[in-house]
């Protein structure tokens, strides 16, 4: 399991662990039923106090992201249908939120920002097609869905954009 701790980021280490494990689950790198390394193993591997690891694990357990069975390793919880999709969206939303702030700080027009995002997605799809699309069933939909909603809004606002330029 790939976990990278940045002790200097503004985020406490246990939060970083939780975020990364959630991300790995959403991206399909960790699948339901898969075992997580023990507190000791992970602690030794990434050089972090074991208490910090167990804190992260127990919060993930509380949130039903992982399951603890007596005497067995911790495993990734199985997700009800649709839940994985929600988590993907949730992850994307969390990662895009800082971008929204930057767009506002730079005073960039909303449509222009959406255009840039779309261009980046298209350009990226061109040279890298293998990556994340493992679990076919859940994967295609959520990627398209956020695309559709802005599109409709865009149609209405596009005219203003043209007048501006």
């Amino acid at each position, binding site marked *: 399991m790939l976990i990278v701790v940045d*002790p200097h980021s*503004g985020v406490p280490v246990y939060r970083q662990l939780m975020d990364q494990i959630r991300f790995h689950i959403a991206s399909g790198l960790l699948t339901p039923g898969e075992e997580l390394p023990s507190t000791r193993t992970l602690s030794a591997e990434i050089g972090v*106090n074991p208490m910090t690891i167990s804190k992260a694990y127990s919060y993930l357990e509380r949130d039903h992201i992982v399951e603890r069975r007596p005497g067995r390793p911790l495993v990734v919880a199985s997700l009800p249908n649709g839940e994985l999709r929600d988590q993907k969206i949730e992850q994307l939303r969390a990662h895009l939120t800082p971008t929204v702030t930057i767009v506002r700080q730079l005073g960039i027009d909303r449509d222009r920002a959406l255009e840039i995002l779309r261009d980046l997605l298209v350009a990226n799809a061109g040279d890298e097609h293998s990556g994340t699309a493992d679990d076919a069933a859940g994967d295609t939909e959520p990627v398209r869905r956020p695309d559709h909603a802005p599109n409709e809004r865009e149609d209405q606002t596009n005219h203003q954009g043209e007048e501006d330029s």
Partner: protein
Amino acid sequence: MKVVTFENIHRAYRRGVDVLHGMEFSIEQGEVVGLLGRNGAGKTTLIRIAMGMIEPQQGTVRLFGLDPREKPVEVKRRIGYVSEDQILPPFLRVEETLALHRGLFPTWDDRLAGELAAQFRLSPREKIGKLSKGQARQVALLCAIAHRPELLILDEPAGGLDPVARREFLETSIRLLNETGSTILFSSHYMGDVERMAGRVVLIHEGHLLLDRPLDALREEHAVALVPHGPRVDRERLLALESCLGVRDRTDALHAVFALEPERARSLLERELGVAGANCRTVGLEEMFIELVGGQA
């Protein structure tokens, strides 16, 4: 169970120059406490008092409930200690140094000692005086933990080590924590190491205890506010606010540290001083350290 207790510790070196004034805190079994402070803050003095190497002029120190000056052998057998300026006899070979420590500690674990010696790639026949600084420190660490101490005390253990040696040192300490459940008290200027290791942070400044918090609470429930200079805002007014831990008067703004989440610090500033929308945010340990003990302007 309390492993370490400092009660009202006072220590001055020369007449009038206080090093510690009324230091008071304790450490529970299994805790990992990072002792922070600027050079000269009193960290080493406090650690030496815990080790029974120097005596406080006032106050009591207890390790496992015992006085380290009264029961030095009993206490030291249960402790591992490494300091930056620790000197092992340079004329001894590595194997002789280990044998010496093995004889001192009834709980010495040969298997662990062997594993660590291999991991650190120490050659048994080498004289201590011939080792690099990093290797000498590794021998000291090996001697400090091969008896699986209940308490590990590290005074600037990583000082002067390269990043690889530092990480190895950290990982070895974590291994002891994992396998033996030892309590650890360590002082360090490497905030990244503190963030990885410590569960709790004790910050001392000019001989006073300035802050004693769980690390996560410090990261999540403390905020640095940048408050613009203004007619109703100055250092004293900010310091008078409850939960304000310190203020630095900088040219751009007043930097105030609050024991509050950013949102709550913001509303406190608005309610009490009429400052609207102050920039309040959580910060990492290094920045928090500088805000709390850094100089003015």
